[in-house]
């Protein structure tokens, strides 16, 4: 009897899974012989053995481990103090965290290939927008104040004096022209 492709893949995957259980257990007890079903693909077995011996656990440096332990202890002490200081029942969270971080939707790496569900982008954009708007408004007000201040306080550099003089002469010429025209009328 031949199984449909989907069922066949699932059946093979189940065999692989059982083999991996044996492989990992054998490694724990330093056993050499690993029982396997003869129906299991030999390529899969070979690849599994290769990965088992080469994908080992990596340990961080001792310095990093202790530094992070200190950071966590500090953060934990702050969390413990929060209710005593009138905060909301120890719920002061890391970087404004007000959700379960494990349930946070993520947008996956577009190069990853697997059709994994793409969620909303979860960067906290609202505070950023509000902050940006406030900064922009503050800059505008500061800019306007600076221009007003500069206009009310003429400087005394030679170039600016020349510009002001030229501007004034143009105004004087326009005014005298207007007066002359009125006189002719």
């Amino acid at each position: 009897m031949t199984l449909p492709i989907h069922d066949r893949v699932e059946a093979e995957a189940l065999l692989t899974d059982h083999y991996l259980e044996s492989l990992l257990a054998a490694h724990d007890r330093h056993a050499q012989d690993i029982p396997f079903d003869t129906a299991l693909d030999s390529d899969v077995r070979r690849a599994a053995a290769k990965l088992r011996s080469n994908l080992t656990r990596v340990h961080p440096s001792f310095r990093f481990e202790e530094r992070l332990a200190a950071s966590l202890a500090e953060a934990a002490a702050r969390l413990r103090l929060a209710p005593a200081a009138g905060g909301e029942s120890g719920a002061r969270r890391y970087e404004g965290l007000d959700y379960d971080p494990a349930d946070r939707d993520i947008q996956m790496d577009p190069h990853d290939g697997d059709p994994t569900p793409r969620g909303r982008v979860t960067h906290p954009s609202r505070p950023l927008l509000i902050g940006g708007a406030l900064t922009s408004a503050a800059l505008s007000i500061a800019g306007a104040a600076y221009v007003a201040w500069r206009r009310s306080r003429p400087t005394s550099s030679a170039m600016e004096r020349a510009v002001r003089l030229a501007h004034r002469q143009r105004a004087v010429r326009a005014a005298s022209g207007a007066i002359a025209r009125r006189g002719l009328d």
Partner: protein
Amino acid sequence: MPRPVFWKVGATDGIRRSQIAHLDRDRGLVVEARRDPTAFEPLYRRYLAQVYSYAYYELGDHHEAEDATERTFLFALSGLPRFQERAHPEDGQGASTFRVWLFRIARNVVANQRRGRRRHRWAPLEAASAVADPMDVEGRATDRAAAADAWAAVGRLPGDRRRAVVLRFVDEMSTAEIAGILGRSEGAVRVLIHRALRSVARDLDKREASFTPAELPGNPAR
């Protein structure tokens, strides 16, 4: 060491069967850490290497792995009041729902970190040298080449296949735990790993075919 917590479950198909299910092995530590956040340290020490390994295999860089590990544990510490234990008998003995929850955080943190990159940098040789035994001088060159091949083959796998393989082989998680972390069914995880192994086998075959016999890993003349 906290005492293991057992729970009586049963009632399937109208027949009341009594069954002992082993709940979250971290329950004692989690309860303690929720009561007093400064008691979080034993959980941190227990899972540091696992989380770090996962981040390192995913990111391929020690500094980035450290960043991801740090953020994962800080998120876990502050999010602990929201953690809910959802143990199922089929998770098997020793299954830890805290570990699943912690790795879901790690997965999110690492994925967000990877997203910022144009292209995933994978440095199999450097990575392999980091795990080779520094005392084994003779075996180092061969081991490093073999490890680099294996790492490179895993690095070329698409997202969830790669994650499933790393969680299965490096962190030695059960299919049920991986399913909880990746948000897929157990059957889907089994198929992911099976297909990943076939891809790795094909990849390794191709690499070996591209070597001359003298260059094959394991050849002492190499």
